[in-house]
């Protein structure tokens, strides 16, 4: 087994390899522990993938990199960066261990408590801070000392509750309303500035035989993006933050208004969304069957590079309340973290330093032009029009949120919000009942 079967085994793994040795007692402890309930999740985690590696505490050797970038385009981006790193550091090899995106995310707790790779992909937000506070992530403050071109906002987004940095940002991408320029030009559509304009645009698209808003929520999280957009427009950024932190009641009129507004837009959404993945919904936009799609800019991954991607454009989700405005957006930051006790600490730090550099990010955004670099020093001249627009868009935003499931507790997001939003999509009429059940579960979860 590549992952630890038990807590005892896990604790044993914390001893440096040089001291540890393999004694019969360690094996025995592992074996006894495996009999307890730890066995079940650990066994499942063991299916996750191979993480074996060698290497001591030298600046050379092998560094393992656990990557959740399993889709073809971002996977190639990671590989391009790793290749360049190896070229520049002849003594170091990087072993990339790619795990299916959703599987990686769902097994993260077991992964981090087992024998995680030295460096692993993760996001900024609540869960990054959570892992840091649970001592599951390594302090990368030293790496940050040498990082250049990272704004203070990014540093704040990489800092744990104890004031140290635990995260190295790599790329990010804004959420907005995406459309094809050619479709808008063909029918003479204008990007809507207000909710009413969005509604009348939707009605016109229906007349023209288009699905106004492509929509797929089989995996449960894409619809959270729509919720975020509406919530940021109706109640603003500060409310979003407190709501996600569990400080605001979910059954308040403010949240009800979000769901009610959404209910008014649902018949513009593509039907049967609960059986459709975001990729399939994106293809509806790509095939010009749908007029718009509310998603992150990674939607571009479903478009062919070149002319097709250049045809892709976006507008900010329209204003709903003029007192709130439309200057808050979702722009989740992806990046890297270091495990608590990497097998090759020096190598891991070196790799992280490189990943945070403009050089590495230039390669990453070139290989995956649906995202933009976090470093100010990154070369923007090679950006596609979409990337250039994303940079502008993020710059003009007054406040940047991460994303519903990155800004709140994972247990709340996955066991409460996914079923809740799916049941709302099935039955948008009972908003009162819905928000009350969310609030009751929230109280129970946030109290524990």
């Amino acid at each position: 087994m590549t992952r630890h079967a038990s807590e005892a085994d896990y604790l044993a793994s914390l001893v440096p390899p040089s001291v540890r040795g393999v004694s019969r007692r360690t094996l025995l402890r592992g074996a006894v522990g495996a009999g307890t309930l730890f066995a079940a999740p650990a066994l499942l985690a063991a299916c996750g993938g191979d993480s074996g590696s060698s290497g001591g505490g030298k600046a050379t050797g092998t560094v393992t990199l656990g990557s959740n970038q399993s889709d073809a385009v971002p996977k190639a981006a990671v590989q391009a960066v790793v290749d360049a790193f190896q070229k520049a550091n002849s003594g170091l090899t990087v072993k990339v261990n790619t795990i299916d995106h959703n599987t990686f995310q769902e097994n993260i707790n077991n992964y981090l408590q087992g024998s995680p790779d030295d460096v692993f992909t993760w996001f900024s937000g609540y869960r990054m801070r959570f892992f840091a506070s649970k001592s599951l992530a390594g302090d990368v403050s030293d790496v940050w000392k040498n990082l250049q071109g990272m704004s203070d906002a990014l540093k704040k987004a990489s800092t744990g509750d104890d004031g140290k940095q635990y995260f190295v940002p790599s790329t990010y991408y804004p959420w907005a309303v995406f459309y094809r320029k050619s479709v808008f030009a063909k029918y003479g559509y204008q990007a809507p500035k207000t909710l009413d304009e969005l509604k009348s645009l939707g009605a016109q698209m229906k007349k023209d035989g288009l699905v106004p808003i492509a929509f797929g929520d089989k995996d449960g999280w894409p619809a959270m993006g729509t919720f975020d957009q509406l919530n940021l427009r109706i109640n603003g950024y500060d409310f979003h933050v407190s709501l996600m932190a569990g400080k605001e009641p979910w059954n308040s009129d403010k949240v009800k208004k979000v769901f009610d507004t959404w209910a008014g837009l649902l018949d513009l959404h593509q039907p049967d969304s609960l059986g459709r993945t975001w990729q399939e919904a994106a293809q509806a936009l790509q095939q010009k069957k749908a007029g718009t799609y509310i998603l992150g800019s990674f939607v571009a991954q479903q478009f062919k590079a070149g002319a097709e991607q250049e045809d892709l454009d976006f507008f900010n989700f329209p204003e709903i309340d003029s007192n709130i405005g439309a200057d808050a957006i979702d722009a989740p930051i992806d990046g890297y973290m270091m495990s608590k006790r990497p097998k090759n600490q020096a190598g891991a730090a070196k790799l992280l330093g490189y990943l945070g550099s403009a050089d590495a990010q230039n390669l990453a955004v070139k290989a995956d032009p649906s995202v933009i670099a976090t470093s100010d020093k990154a070369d923007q001249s090679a950006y596609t029009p979409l990337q250039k627009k994303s940079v502008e868009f993020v710059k003009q935003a007054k406040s940047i949120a991460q994303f519903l499931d990155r800004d709140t507790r994972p247990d709340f997001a996955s066991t409460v919000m996914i079923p809740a939003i799916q049941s709302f999509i099935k039955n948008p009429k009972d908003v009162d009942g819905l928000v009350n059940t969310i609030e009751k579960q929230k109280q129970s979860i946030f109290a524990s």
Partner: protein
Amino acid sequence: MARRPKYKGIDHLSPVDRVVVGLMIAIPTLLVLWLVWLPAIASVLLSFTNWDGIGPISGAKVIGLKNYSDVVNIYPPFWPAVQHNLIWLAALFLVATPFGLFLAVLLDRELRGSRVFQTAIYLPVVLSLALIGFIWQLIYSRDQGLINQVTGSTIDWYGDQRYNLWAALLAASWRHVGYIMLLYLAGLKGVDPSLREAARVDGASERTTFFRVVFPVMAPINMIVIVVTVIEALRAFDLVWVINKGRNGLELISTLVTSNIVGEASRIGFGSAMATIMLIVSSVFVALYLRVMMKEQR
């Protein structure tokens, strides 16, 4: 060939043999304790805590029955899951199992090509439910599936919650029927032919012979089939997990346990409470089964 002395009880075994016998009893017992009882008891104990799966278990707080009251009162997917498990049980019990019996009776008549049918019907049993979910995906898929291609409908069989439970049940039954067919076929082969002859001599019709003579003789098989059906219904998991992780109309208790415990949610205590509820329900059936079996042996 060496001649072996006649076995005269444990006292006559050599010390080595005694050790071997001892080990043969001890090792399986330990394995059962370790792999079955310890995790089961640990689950029950964990269900009274709020452990989040991170750090030592000593960090968990005991919170009494709160998990149970939360599951029953404020967790919206729970009651639909119970309902779906019951529907699953009823469908397997009332449709799939009788159909399997029916096929077994037909095949038992040695029709031409019965071997081929036997193999064809049994084939799905060899496949894992996860694979079956995928095979049926090819049939059900909204945009590329066989059904919609042929009929021209746009029903989203796996995605629309009005249909997906039934679509999944059809796929599960496809497999279950083969299993039951094989069990009954074995049972039917074991029925003494003289019983049928005697019934025929007494002037009983085909139907009466089956229901009054053959079926009652197969009582042990019936018991096994009932237990198999109940267990299949309770542990239904892989198929719906492959379809959509047990969300959106396909909630089952087993998928809720998994999504709470295994996923990044890591609500170990909460998930364990549902696992314990499942354990209690299954124990009722197991107890009934054991009672019947014990009675028979006496």
